[in-house]
């Protein structure tokens, strides 16, 4: 199949794929360009001069919101979710390698957590905290709400990883006299490390951008997506686009960083083998 001539189907689908990529990135690039709008410019094209005025405006004290503090909250929350996501998914992945009583129930509970509408979880956690007399906050209730969304992804990824993981490597290590900890630390962990980075990336970015699950659970202080959502109704200047550009570039750099780490790990592994 690989040496056939390109057919008409290929060109039609290639054009379709290109349109799809344009559809994905086109509007984002409009925001990116408009964030460099001149100081007198508005929310739409044409550009009224080019400036970084709105980026400076972003870091000044805002009347409508506090971008810096909410960014710090979202960033910290993302890191917390990332760490817990990696550790808990890894442990659960290891647990699911053996059948144990309740494993099926736990597995379906995990899948259900992915399927149940986010606003229902948001409402439920909000009501639980209210009825138990707990104070909802971004680091407690919103933290848990985010985990109900990121953990299923993490667990399913680890599930897929261990399904394709040959036990022969561990048996070999054990035959050579390694303890079960040594087997895990020096054999299993290096092999699944790239997937763990992936799980961490999912945890961080999904939490960093999560909105619906934070709505009823964030307490007094807003996370960044809540702040941005508030701005969509209040802000009528390109400062909104500047914020969009900054957070999107931040997300891109996190993704690139994770991909770079995965590539380096793969290359190092290939060298060892």
């Amino acid at each position, binding site marked *: 199949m690989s040496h056939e001539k390109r057919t008409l189907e290929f060109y039609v689908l290639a054009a379709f794929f290109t349109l799809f990529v344009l559809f994905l990135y086109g509007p984002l690039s409009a925001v990116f360009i408009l964030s460099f709008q001149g100081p007198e410019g508005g929310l739409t094209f044409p550009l009224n001069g080019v400036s970084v005025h709105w980026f400076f405006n972003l870091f000044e004290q805002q009347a409508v919101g506090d971008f810096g503090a909410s960014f710090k909250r979202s960033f910290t929350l993302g890191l917390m979710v990332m760490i817990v996501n990696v550790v808990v998914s890894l442990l659960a992945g290891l647990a699911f390698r053996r059948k144990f009583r309740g494993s099926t129930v736990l597995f379906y509970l995990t899948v259900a957590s992915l399927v*149940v509408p986010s606003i229902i979880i948001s409402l439920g956690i909000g009501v639980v905290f209210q009825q138990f007399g707990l104070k909802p906050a971004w680091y407690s209730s919103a933290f848990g709400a985010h985990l109900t969304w990121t953990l299923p992804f993490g667990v399913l990824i680890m599930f897929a990883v261990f399904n394709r993981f040959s036990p022969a490597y561990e048996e070999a290590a054990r035959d050579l006299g390694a303890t079960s900890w040594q087997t895990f630390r020096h054999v299993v962990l290096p092999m699944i490390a790239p997937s763990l980075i992936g799980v961490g990336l999912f945890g961080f970015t999904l939490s960093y951008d999560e909105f619906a699950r934070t709505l009823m659970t964030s307490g007094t202080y807003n996370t960044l997506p809540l702040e941005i959502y508030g701005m969509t109704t209040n802000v009528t200047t390109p400062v909104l686009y500047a914020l969009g550009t900054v957070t999107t570039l931040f997300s891109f750099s996190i993704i690139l960083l994770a991909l770079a780490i995965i590539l380096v790990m793969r290359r190092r592994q290939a060298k060892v083998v």
Partner: protein
Amino acid sequence: MAATITDEDTQIAGPAKPPITAYIGRIASRVASYLQAVPLALILGFFFLLPILMIAVVSFWDYDFAGLYPDFLTMNYTDTLGSWVTWKTYLNTLKYTAMVWGLTLLIGFWVAYFLAFHIRTTTMQMVLFLVCTVPFLTSNIIRMISWIPVLGRNGLVNTTLIEMGIIPSPIEWLLYSDFAVVLAMVHLNTLFMVTPIFNTLMRIDRSLIEAARDAGANGWQILWNVIIPLAKPGIAIGSIFVVTLVMADFSTVQVMSGGQSASVALMMKNQMSLLQYPAAAANAVVLLIVVLLMVAAILRVVDIRKEL
């Protein structure tokens, strides 16, 4: 006497010894499994199972502006199911779901098909797949807002069309309309279709396609009789994602319709902001049942268990 005792001893100790260590080993590994599963179970128990049970309980409670009162009333259900606004809102939400599902399936399948069958090197496949995946990892709200300068009254589309002389005045229904809601939902959710379908297409044994071609099947017959049946599990997983996400959506509907359209989740959100938690909880229970029935229907058509 002595002989029988030793005989008994060997009978007990001899064959029993390996099973005992194996037994201990099995217990240890079972305990390890439980310990490894505990964090996940605790987190999901407290932040997922308990909240849903709580919603079910609270949906029968009484409330006023000051607080919630434990009770057993069916008022919250009769109020919401007895109102034609609720039914209209459900119908509207189902309309969005059907349209977005159809469009994401159509687009997602052809994108995945192109990546799986027309891109020849694995590296290129992965690069193009990542190009599709990256926007999924950025903010939904920013991606929604990004349509405003494109579709707005003085947006890119309108100004371009006017300058080209195709239309005399701006098209009003581009932004803050059902069209905008569906467009943004497709934009946000197509990735959920592409990924699982791409995954199943990549696993299709290429010799099956060659066999079909040798047997005289043309392109459409191969697609319809070989590829699509084998891609069904991926289509089902993608459909579950898209259907549950769109059924639960409120932010896209609110932002892109400019507050002119409603969805079930948006109705719930409004009740929550008025602190009418039991009413919102009753709606949540109904919505949850509807969504779970839709998922069950998809799972009845396609068995995805072997995909997991």
